[in-house]
């Protein structure tokens, strides 16, 4: 499969021209929740798949990669509110909206689930990111999306 490295913005934007941007790398200074060493990633999308899906490949450990998507396509009302502290951590200037991703997992039962409780928010200009925990939001780490049939997994 041919893979292309995409920009941090291209999961949301319709543009697929990734070559003119320096923000293809993501940096989570505090790592992910409970995985503090997972700091540096790059977004990789596969040719022929929608830009709403990508691998977030760790640059620190080649064995670590997460499938991420735009959660608003799973739940149109999804919101990941940022505190002032979150905005400061991301270096977001006033009026700049973060990119929001959620991870997708395929369980042993073939169910595809999304972690809507712990979204990843990223500064679109710098690639600086942070994982939020939306306490009291009612969102789950295993929001059921759909079931993959065996043929789709293989």
């Amino acid at each position, binding site marked *: 499969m041919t893979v292309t490295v995409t920009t941090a913005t291209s999961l949301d934007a319709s543009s697929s021209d990734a070559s003119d941007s320096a923000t293809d790398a993501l940096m989570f200074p505090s790592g*992910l929740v*409970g995985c503090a060493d997972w700091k540096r990633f790059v977004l990789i*999308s596969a040719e022929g798949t929608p830009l709403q899906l990508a*691998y977030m490949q760790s640059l620190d450990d080649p064995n670590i990669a997460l499938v991420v998507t735009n959660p608003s396509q799973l739940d149109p009302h999804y919101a990941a509110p940022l505190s002032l502290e979150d905005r400061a951590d991301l270096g977001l200037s006033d009026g700049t909206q973060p990119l929001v991703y959620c*991870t997708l997992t395929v369980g042993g039962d073939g169910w595809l689930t999304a972690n809507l409780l712990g979204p990843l928010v990223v500064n679109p200009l710098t690639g600086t990111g942070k994982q939020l925990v939306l306490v009291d939001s009612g969102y789950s780490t295993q929001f059921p*999306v759909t079931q*993959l049939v065996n043929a789709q*997994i293989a």
Partner: protein
Amino acid sequence: MLVLSRKPDQSLLLGGEITVTVLSIDGDRVKLGVTAPRHITVLREEIFKQVQSANAGAASASARPPLAAIASALRSR
């Protein structure tokens, strides 16, 4: 593990900038108040572990079928 006894309205100081106060005790529930600098994330342990476990699960190779398979499943749902 350090073990300390506290009564309601008594506190613990952690590192000089985090205060944990016992607000009330009602049966098997203890209500705690935490005062910490904004950069300190305060989470219930089980929530932290849920997200940690979700991250570890999402990163494992078996949880990562080809993107095309996921895209196909998303389209057909």
